[in-house]
């Protein structure tokens, strides 16, 4: 039997309309960047936006390829996180589309960045990564509030020393394990 091969993308919505140093009082930068998304955002809106972006970038061929298998598995507005499912052959189209999107999919939506933090062949690994990141968030937020800037958690969250790299993309071992030769990932860039 032929198995349908999918990829799962873990995406964070990072808000960009925050001026650095804007943080006042009890709110830290980290929380400002990762603030909750409006409750109006439904999975349908996301899908529609991605499709139209793919169509703009790759034309009818691209949107046709993506159309059938694209699905939102999980969308949490409180943490601005969602998980997408897309067929293995076309996940890069979706990733590219996400990279080009810069606002919430509404009229006059807030400017934001869709940050793909994890690509995996199973939803399980994506979920594990989301859990790991949530834990790091908790740590980092607490540390930041306590005023300890030398925190490992934030570094880990943003992937290490190279802070200038806006998008730290993580394509982990488990994807390679799936014997996937078309996954030659250029991390960062």
């Amino acid at each position: 039997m032929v198995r349908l091969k999918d990829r799962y993308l873990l995406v964070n919505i990072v808000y960009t309309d925050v001026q650095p140093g804007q943080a006042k009082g009890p709110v830290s930068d980290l929380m400002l960047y990762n603030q909750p998304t409006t409750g109006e955002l439904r999975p349908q809106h996301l899908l529609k936006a991605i499709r139209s972006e793919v169509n703009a970038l790759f034309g009818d061929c691209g949107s046709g390829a993506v159309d059938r298998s694209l699905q939102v598995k999980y969308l949490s507005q409180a943490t601005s996180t969602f998980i997408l499912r897309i067929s293995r052959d076309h996940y890069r189209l979706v990733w590219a589309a996400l990279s080009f999107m810069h606002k919430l999919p509404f009229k006059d939506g807030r400017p934001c960045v869709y940050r793909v933090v994890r690509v995996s062949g199973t939803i399980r690994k994506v979920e594990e990564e989301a859990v790991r990141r949530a834990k790091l968030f908790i740590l980092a937020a607490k540390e930041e509030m306590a005023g300890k800037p030398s925190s490992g958690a934030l570094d880990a969250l943003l992937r290490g020393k190279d802070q200038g790299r806006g998008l730290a993309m993580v394509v982990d071992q488990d994807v390679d394990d799936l014997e996937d030769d078309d996954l030659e990932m250029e991390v960062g860039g």
Partner: protein
Amino acid sequence: MERNKANLASKHPEARKRKGAPTGANSQQTRPNNSRGNKRVKFQDARNIRSQPPDAALDDGKLDLEKFLNAREYEIKALETSMQKCKDVNASRVFQQVPRAMRRRTASHNAKRVPKRLRERARREMIEDNTPTVEARRRRPRTTRARIRAETAKRLGILAARQQKKRLEKSSTEGGEATTKPATIQSRAPRPKIRRNVLNDPPKTRSKFRKRQINKTWLPTHLWHAKRARMTEPAKPLWRFAIPITPTEKCYRPTHRAAGQKGAVVWDTSYISTMGLYGSAEGAERVLRALGLTKEALWGNRGKKWRAGLRKWSGVLSKPRKDGRRNIGPATVVWNPEVPSGESTSLKPSHPSNPSRQLLIRTHPSAFVELFNELLKLVKMQSPQMHIEDLRFEIGSIEILGPASTEALIGVLKPYYEKVAVEGNQGCVFRSLVGVTNPSSLPKDATLSFSIMNPRLSYPPKKVVVPPGSDQSLLETLTKWPVEEHLKPSGLYNRDVRHKASQLPSQKSINRRKGSCLPGKGLGVTSADPPIPVMLLASRPATPGQAQGLWTLLAPWKCILPIWYSLMHYPLSTGGNPRLGGLDEQRQVAFEQGSPWFPGDYPGTDAGMEWELQNREKRKSDWDRRPKSKRVEWRSLDLGGGRKGEVGDGLACDFEHLFGLQKTIVCSAEPLGPRGGGDPDAMELDHREEDDRADSPKAHQTHPLGTVTHVTKAKFDEFGSTPNANRPPKHSLVTVSLSFTGRGVASACARIYRLPRQACPPVQPSTQAEVPATQPPPSSNPDSLPLDLREQWLRKLPLQEANTNVAASRGRGQQEARHSIVPPRIFSSIGTSTLNRPHLAGPHLAGSVPGDKILLGPKAKANQTDVGGHPLCPGEDDLIGFVTTGSFCLSEGKGTAIGSISAEKATESLKEAGAKEGRLCIIRNAGESVGWLARWEVV
């Protein structure tokens, strides 16, 4: 009616719906009613990940650390529960997780069927899934008969309780002492009766199982096998035994692997019949000579070791008849070593008429009665008197095959006596065989007899450690084979020793001993543990080559079970345990080694004939059961060349047709059907025995197949070797192994043809180019076979073989014959080698030479001159035999078969066409019109 149903449903917990609908958050959704839909909803439920609205992370629309952290925590929890739920919903039940070999029937309904460590989970899962469980004991009887039985049992139980109560009252009034004191009288276990010259009773079984063994006998390992293998049908035992046919798990390829490359296959072959022959050495020689052991080497110096009891003899026994000898079947003869002179003979039976020599003769149960009667006749003729004993249920056997067979045996059989002086050297020699991967590397037909400890004492068996540097000593042992030192008679021949060995301590007492001794310490041998006499026979495969040899272990009947348990649980050094084999596996192994299997591949013997007749009936009934449109209509089979209809009976290896014997109404069904083999019933022994003696020859006389005889390889070679040797007897068959030269797979009943004879058309004196044009086309007559059929078939040979073949035939001066058929111009221009290449000589050349095709004008009808380019099957007069076993052979990687061909026709074709081409034959499956080229080899 409706009400009734509702009542039932409320009464019986089984009647409840099995799986409760999953209780999820979205239970208000309308769900499909069928179970498939339920499952789908369940999966959807499980995959749904909960999420929070944004308000949860905000404090009145403002960012707040506490809420921010709470939202993350909530997310972590949601994701983790989602993962867990997915895992649970996909989870399989434990009985699905056990390895295939450990799966048991009804494991889904009975937690006891799964391994112990999984039992708790299984129980829990059964409760979760609401699996209906019914305890067999509590099951409400469904049939009238069962109800009556249950009621009777209940009443009897009440009666027994009342009686016991009465007895108790009585004893208490008498004094109350008698009840507390156990009986002090210990009775000796009765020694089984072994009568001379008469068939013996099967062992008396527990009353619980006695009714099931009225017309058959169970093997000592029956209960073990019945759980793991398909047995013979209860009403249709095989040779009066309940024999495992094949293991319940699929095992064709694993058996092939275990038998040849890695591992071992074990069979309980206790059904093989053993007879004891007692008397003087000269008398034994006369008896054995009369049974066909006439080779002088056996009785001269070369057979010395055999007669000393150090080797076995295996071969086909025969009996004299009016018209020559008739083979009975393969048998093994072993002599008991003589009591060394000048020693006190404790093993000697006390009675004065002490037989000087003892022999064991082992044969297949289907040939047992025949051999027993023949032996009886011969024994009674001897003076001084000899006698025979039927040791069928006294001595059992286990066969083990495979590279790890020796290792497993060494791990299980521990010699009882350490000292060489007590019992000879053979136990030590056996222990030193560590590292032997093939018993054929032992001296030919080697035997080893010694006593072993009860294998239960060292259960579970442990891996054998190979001592470093043992290779050299092993080689030395194998070449010197020092077994003659302190040679003693084997205890296996002595009924007292056998009986003593059968009184093994119970498993319960062994467990008690184990419990009381320190952990890690083995159980020592006490006086309660008798030595078990065993004998090991190493046999080489019938065909030369690298095939594995076979170990046969003989032991007292009642000791087979403990040995079997240990053997099946021995941890092999290559991983796993020895595999279980059934009758089918035995046939498979024989087939893969290219050796015939008795009785199936010996239709020239009485036992083989019975097997064949039985199988004919089975095939006939199978054929009858099929709808008319889906079975072969034998009469309308088109063999090409104007021939219609199958040759002979398509459902039989029709040797009657081959030899032109008169067909009679098959009356042999009666002695075969209900009684299985010819083995007389134990219960009604006296008249059955008479019956058999009178009956079996009669059946053979009535059935025409009874006149067909079997010729062994040695005999056949005699006919072939000398040009003016006497011809093989009329209606005689020789067993051959067949292997296809190219394509083709044969099945049972396939027809074997020799290559058709060279037709002799008027040979033209000139060999000019015009020959094909002037010569009439070979297949001008539509109702006859093409004249160059032999050529056509020879062209089908693969290139290499063909070349050597052509050279060989040229050497014998058949060149002209070839040239007369094939135009010389083609020969000179293309050359023989290219012509013989199958793809060139394929469809367009095979039918006839192209020139002829053109001459034919209108295209010939289908199957007139060839079958789509494939040569036609030869005619009926070229039929030489039938395939008895055939399939694709895993060891050869192509189709092979075992069959029987007419000895007369085989020698004829060898003489006519030489050793190489004479062995070519064409095999056509019954009901098919296409034949394939094969080569036969006498086995």
